[in-house]
């Protein structure tokens, strides 16, 4: 499941289960590339939640999390940030992190 999440609702939305928070803007090329990969991951794994966090529509994100560039990903379990990643990545790299955060080593 994918949804757009504003900074004010971020904690409430991501407090339970596994979430990937994708800090992005709608005119960032690498964000679009990452989107294509994420589309496939979410389609194949509907149990994974993806929060699109537009840092231009919600600039407070940058201040709160120190986001330096887009895309930046947070991999979260029950509201806790377990791992972070910057830049567009391939499917295998993303799945490795997802697996680690969802199920442990």
């Amino acid at each position, binding site marked *: 499941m994918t949804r757009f999440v504003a900074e004010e609702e971020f904690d409430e939305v991501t407090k339970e289960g596994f979430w990937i928070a994708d800090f992005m803007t709608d005119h960032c090329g690498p964000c679009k*590339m990452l*989107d*294509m990969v994420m589309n496939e991951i979410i389609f194949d*794994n*509907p149990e994974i939640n993806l929060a699109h966090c537009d840092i231009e529509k919600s600039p407070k994100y940058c201040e709160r999390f120190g986001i330096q560039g887009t895309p930046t990903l947070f991999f979260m379990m029950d509201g806790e940030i377990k791992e972070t990643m910057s830049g567009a990545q391939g499917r295998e790299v993303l799945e490795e992190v997802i*697996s680690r955060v*969802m*199920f442990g080593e």
Partner: protein
Amino acid sequence: MLKTKFPYEKVDYEKYFQAYMEREDAIRSIPTEAELEELAHKGLVKDHLTLSAIGEGEAAQTGDTITFKTESELPKFNKEKVTVSIGRGLYNKELETEAAGKKAGDVYQITIQDKPVTVTILEIKRKQEPAEVTDEMVVGLQLKDDGGKPVTTVEAYMAFMKEQKKMECLANVNYYVMEKLLVDYPVADPDQEDLQRLKELEKEFFVKIYKEHDGIDVYALSQEQAREMWQCDSFDDFLELRNEWYKMKVQQCLVYRNILGLEDDPAYDYTDHYEVLSELQMKLFAMLEERMKRKD
């Protein structure tokens, strides 16, 4: 009229292109129309899938979402409930492969890291796609095309996604090849007039863009505002800091012009207008696209 001379006769583009194609992780072809269609479709329906329990006695298939109970000495495989869509090995490849063909209630054993793991299948769900794709679904994605225009119809969405994927493939090859070429074909000393001209072109470009997009007069900014935007004291300082980029732009343009055989074409004089580098890149992408079309 550009002054810097490219100090090489011919760039051996083929050598670098082939080196990329021989890499293990190389993208060797642009997806076919059918594959592009499927990718775009997945992106559109992914938020509208429903998961329903499969019929009683029905067996699991790859792609189904299964809830397991696992028992073992290994903490990762000793869980009351764990849910995963089987097939990609996000939880464990072998455990998931074995689950295909099993039914709810089935119990099986596998060995992971030399330890026995008992797996009980608690529930099997299968995803169902919506009966049709609609413009409302597209609007929900909040996409904008490269011109900043919202993508609002299924037709526009499919075209947009296909183009994105195609460009991604081409950009991957180009990034690899150009990175190597810029090292192996250095242009040590670009002409100062060329660099100055590129700086002027960029100045015009930024002044216009900031004005049109953000309503900002870059010359009216305070020192503090300039620091916030560019981490330097003024717009002129910002341009000055980009000197290395102007040198690289000269080199990139010269390399592209050489590869494309456009060295004598005045339309691709990079001191004449700002967009030359992008135009050269798009021409190279067009050449790559032909090369990387699926032959089957």
